[in-house]
């Protein structure tokens, strides 16, 4: 047995390797989607597809990579050689959704495959019928983009230009795509080099034994935490507004069994899969459950396959959480991933009330395409501003405008001054939205209000992608729900309520988007909120009057 000090040092080395892979990616990625919002993950897995370490970039990527490695192994069997680089994105072959490409470098000791260095990164475009990888109109996955089943990009050191050219030809920004792909492969090669150095220093046997202990240790930590939770069978439900294709109130239902130090999450009772792109792939569903688990345990707990042994997941193929091909799935890393995580967290309210949190705001973005009259050039602008609020927790209020619930405050919005300089936009107001959060002992974080003037000279069009105009951020343990999103397009005297999955919304010169984003849910009974906190909220204008609590039902905003 390897001594505990060596195991500890090897752990810290692996954790540093995935972080270094991330830094290499940040420095070399071409598209700034990757190096600004860090929408990528780096990881080391072993040959049995066990996740050893994953850099903490995107919560919804956590824990899903084992299915990707299995897909490569299923495809290639023994035909995996030193110098190979693999690629995939297909959600029905180990991916989570099409915009996320996954690059793999196998790591060998002598002739024996031991580990994998992996980079998964979100592309700004992946082909398909709309620009930007999100197509609310898709009813089949082929409309969402290019499907890449596991393939070799490098074959024993030979770069397969034919394959790379074919893929690049099928996306909209080839240069950017190729630059990012190079960065992904470079980052995985950094991981390979560093793992080889550990192997050389300690020898393969010591490293492999250490990995067993590392995973067992994480499992032990996780189980020790779960063991403190109340045994029982609990249910939680979270509901999506719609799929954009006519189906409304799509529920995700979790039945969670806490038995000693184990969890079983049964999602079988969720809504049948739907026509629109809110369906989840299997790996994405697993990731969403793991994300909920990582939020419930101590945040310092490692996030590896050992951690996830403590939870068994049961689901039914053909439901919204585990769709059958060829259902479209692109929005699922946001929705229904957030709803899957929420259903688990809501179920746990009675099992571990000191660990659950209230609901965070949902994603609801707008992409506008038009012509800038100052330059006569076409522009495409994505609304990243007007963030919703975070959910309250057992220790305090929710963070103002830190939502969306799948990113948990890890995705930055840009400068208003820069946006006005670069695009024909005028931000009249961009402030907190008073009364938007759920009341409680701890209140939710405020959402935003944005009045955005379109300073265009000819008509433009907008697409939307999101959730949460009818279903709000939920309150927890007596805390109230927040207000849902309310997005409007004001055109002359008319007012149009925007739905969350629309394409080709006409936008006229002088139109104003009036965006009011959701507040977070409250935690604990409002009676328990301190008088001081209430006085501060009033003084700071977070509430508009002493009696004006946030509205706790959703009916009042059901105009659309």
């Amino acid at each position, binding site marked *: 047995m390897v001594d505990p*000090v060596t*195991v*500890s*040092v090897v*752990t*810290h*080395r692996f954790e*540093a390797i995935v972080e*270094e892979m991330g*830094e*290499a990616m940040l*420095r070399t990625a071409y598209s*700034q989607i990757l190096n*600004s919002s860090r929408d990528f993950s780096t990881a080391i897995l072993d040959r049995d597809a066990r996740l050893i370490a994953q850099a*903490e970039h995107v*919560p919804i990527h956590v824990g899903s990579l084992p299915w990707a490695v299995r897909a490569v192994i299923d495809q290639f069997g023994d035909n995996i050689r030193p110098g190979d680089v693999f690629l995939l994105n297909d959600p029905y072959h180990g991916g989570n959704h099409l915009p996320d490409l996954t690059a793999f470098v196998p790591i060998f000791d002598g002739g024996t495959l031991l580990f994998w260095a992996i980079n998964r990164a979100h592309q700004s475009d992946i082909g398909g019928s709309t620009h930007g990888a999100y197509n609310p109109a898709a009813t089949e996955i082929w409309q969402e983009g290019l499907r890449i089943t596991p393939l070799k990009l490098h074959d024993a050191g030979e770069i397969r230009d034919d394959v790379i050219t074919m893929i690049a030809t099928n996306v909209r920004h080839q*240069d950017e795509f190729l630059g990012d792909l190079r960065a992904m492969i470079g980052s995985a090669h*950094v991981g390979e080099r560093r793992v080889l150095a550990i192997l*050389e220093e300690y020898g393969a046997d010591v490293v492999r034994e250490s990995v067993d*202990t*590392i995973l*067992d*240790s994480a*499992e*032990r*930590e996780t189980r020790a935490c779960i063991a403190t939770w109340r045994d029982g069978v609990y249910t939680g439900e979270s509901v999506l507004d719609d799929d954009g294709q006519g189906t409304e109130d799509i529920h995700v239902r979790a039945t969670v069994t806490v038995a000693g130090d184990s969890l079983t999450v049964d999602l079988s009772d969720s809504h049948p899969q739907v026509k629109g792109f809110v369906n989840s792939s299997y790996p994405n569903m697993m990731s969403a459950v793991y994300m909920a688990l*990582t*939020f419930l345990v101590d*945040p*310092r*707990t490692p*996030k590896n396959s050992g951690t996830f042994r403590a939870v068994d997941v049961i689901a039914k193929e053909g439901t919204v959480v585990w769709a059958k091909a060829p259902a479209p799935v692109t929005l699922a890393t946001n929705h229904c991933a957030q709803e899957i995580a929420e259903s688990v967290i809501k179920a746990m309210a009675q099992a571990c009330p000191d660990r659950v*949190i209230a609901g965070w705001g949902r994603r609801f973005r707008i992409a506008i395409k038009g012509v800038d009259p100052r330059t006569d050039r076409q522009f495409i602008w994505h609304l990243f501003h007007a*963030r919703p609020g*975070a959910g309250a927790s*057992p*220790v*305090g209020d929710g*963070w103002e*405008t*830190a939502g969306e619930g799948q990113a*948990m*405050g*890890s995705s*930055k*919005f840009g400068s*208003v*001054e*820069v946006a006005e*300089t670069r695009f024909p936009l*005028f931000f*009249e*107001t*961009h*402030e*907190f939205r008073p009364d938007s959060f759920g009341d409680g002992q701890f209140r939710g974080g405020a959402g*935003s209000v944005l*009045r955005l003037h379109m300073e265009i000279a000819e008509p433009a069009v907008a697409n939307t992608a999101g959730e949460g105009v009818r279903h709000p951020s939920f309150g927890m343990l007596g805390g109230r729900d927040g207000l849902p999103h309310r997005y409007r397009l004001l055109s002359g005297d008319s007012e149009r309520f925007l739905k969350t999955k629309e394409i080709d919304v006409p936008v006229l010169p002088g139109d104003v988007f009036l965006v009011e984003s959701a507040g977070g849910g409250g935690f604990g009974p409002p009676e328990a909120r301190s008088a001081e906190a209430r006085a501060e909220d009033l003084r*700071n204008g*977070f509430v508009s009057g002493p009696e004006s609590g946030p509205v706790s039902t959703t009916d009042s905003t059901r105009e659309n």
Partner: protein
Amino acid sequence: MYRIGIDIGGTFTDIAAVDENGRVVIAKSSSTPADPSEGLLEGLRVLAGELGLDRAELLARTERIVHGTTVATNALLESKGAKVALLTTEGHRDVIEMREGMKEDRYNVRMAPPVPLVPRHRRIGVKERLRSDGSVGTALTAESLKDAVEQVADLGVDAVAVCYLHSYRNAEHEAVTGDALAAALPDTYVSLSSEVLPQIKEYERVWTTVVNAYVGPVLSSYLSRLSAKLLDAGYSGEVMIMHSHGGVATIAESSRLAAGAVLSGPAGGIAAATHIARLIGEGDLITFDMGGTSTDIALLQGGEAQLTGEKQVGIAKVSLPTLDIHTLGAGGGSMARVAGAILHVGPESAGAAPGPACYGRGGTVATVTDANVVLGYLGAERFLGGRMALDSAAAEAALERLGAELGTSAVTAAEGVAKVVNTTMAEGIRIVSVRRGVDPRRFALVSFGGAAGLHVTEVARLLEIRRVVVPNVASVLSAWGMLASDLRHELVRSHVGEASTTSAAGLREVLLRMEEEGRARLDGFPGTVEVRRALDMRYGEQIFEITVPVDGVDLDAADLVEQVVARFHKRHEDLYSYHADGQEVVIVNARTTVIGKLPELQAAPLQPSTAEVAEPGSRRVHLDGWIDVPVHALDVLPPGSSIAGPALFESPTTTVLIRAGETATVTPHGWLDIDVPLRAGAER
């Protein structure tokens, strides 16, 4: 004439005086946090005593005092700054608290939000609006201005920050507001974003302006108190304040731009490293400053430390150019814990109270320092030159408990703590290097901070770094380094435009105007003035700019713009391994650094020590088994001597360990220059 550097830390005030010949005399006094100037004056008295003078005589023979202060830092970190109001464009008063949608520590979902420096009810929206081209969209009327000033008056604040959208483009509204505030509230400190940081991106600008207002009154009142006391004590020379950018500035300038002094203390260490780089003829250095709770590292390339505009200090964002110092959460006081089967060290620290178990102040958790005691590296009787006895039994007991959790002995657990903390620090340095695009193997590691000497060669070995330098002025390194700094003003102006539509004349005018302003700030400085220029640029579709030095480009050249664009492509290639010739290039900010060169600091070789070279003592230490190693007194080693490891070196402020295979040579300045061999099989 003397030059005196003063660095006020939490516990000690360190003073270094240097005469014309470069001879260094040092003194220490206890810091007096309530009014740091008291400890400072006391330190000057001690220093005068060392030189056989009284304080007035010393001050009469002193031409310059350079001072690093933590007054601004502490005000910020301990939330003891001024009561601030913020005037901002109506409809945009929440920029500072929106945090660009970010929350720290994404997996930690049970975390209360931070208390804002300026609560929402003190953030006042003013009816005015500039457009992105600098034109006036909504005029600032006398009425709305009056209304705003009245609201500020009602709040009864000490300071006002003013930050309007697009004011980097047109400062008029802010200037008028500043005048109105000065007229109505003459005792209130006013901070205008167009003066503090006239740079696009409102989040960075509003934070920096608010921090300036928050620490400004505190720092300026301290500095005026200090000036008065020094004058009373008989000093009539210059007082310079160390700034976060590594240069110094006058008291007046430091009071105006107080946010520039929030990292005044650590900047002294980097100034010292810059000077060390010159003295040892090695420009590529990584500083390794390991203290009680954390380790600060910084990279010097070509003898220069890099600046960043992305500094986070506590919850605050300060975007003035600041030395790029990275803090790792591992130091002597870092606590060990076992999670599952894995040993972790830090980031939690035992701090000074209760401190490590061996301090005997009630701490029971094993720390890095306790491990060093158990391994025999720290002599229990000789810690800090014997000023503090260590309780080795308490250290032993703490490591016993840790060992029991790991299923091993106290000594093995102590070895484990050392290995884990060394790994953490080495990997931290590696990641910071990768982030800056450099390979750490070609750097030398410079060790300072009390805890560094026991870890530095092992960290070097893990990074395949061959050379480690331990300066023996380490105990007052910052104070000494400050004396090597120059007067410095960092100016920035946003100048957003596509390169293809920017005229050479327009760009030249912006740069020359900034140079003029910088020279004016030097206020009649008689010495050599150096001007450096850079532009922040990006490709059209990118979000982030990179800073491109344009020194040596002829401003009068007709193809000025083409030349800077060529520099940009080259810099982009260097940083990101690609460039895109055909793409549109955008110039975002112009930067100018105006430096008033102060006379160079001399560093005298060691005087031959009059003391007998003491025979080394000996101590039993654990290095893969227990062995006896010689213990040398660091301060009396003759220059040129060479000592092979394993060996220990002790001074009143630090202990240095070299291992088998490593060789320490004593430099002419009495420093250790350590050769660390590559381990077998290392990558070359």
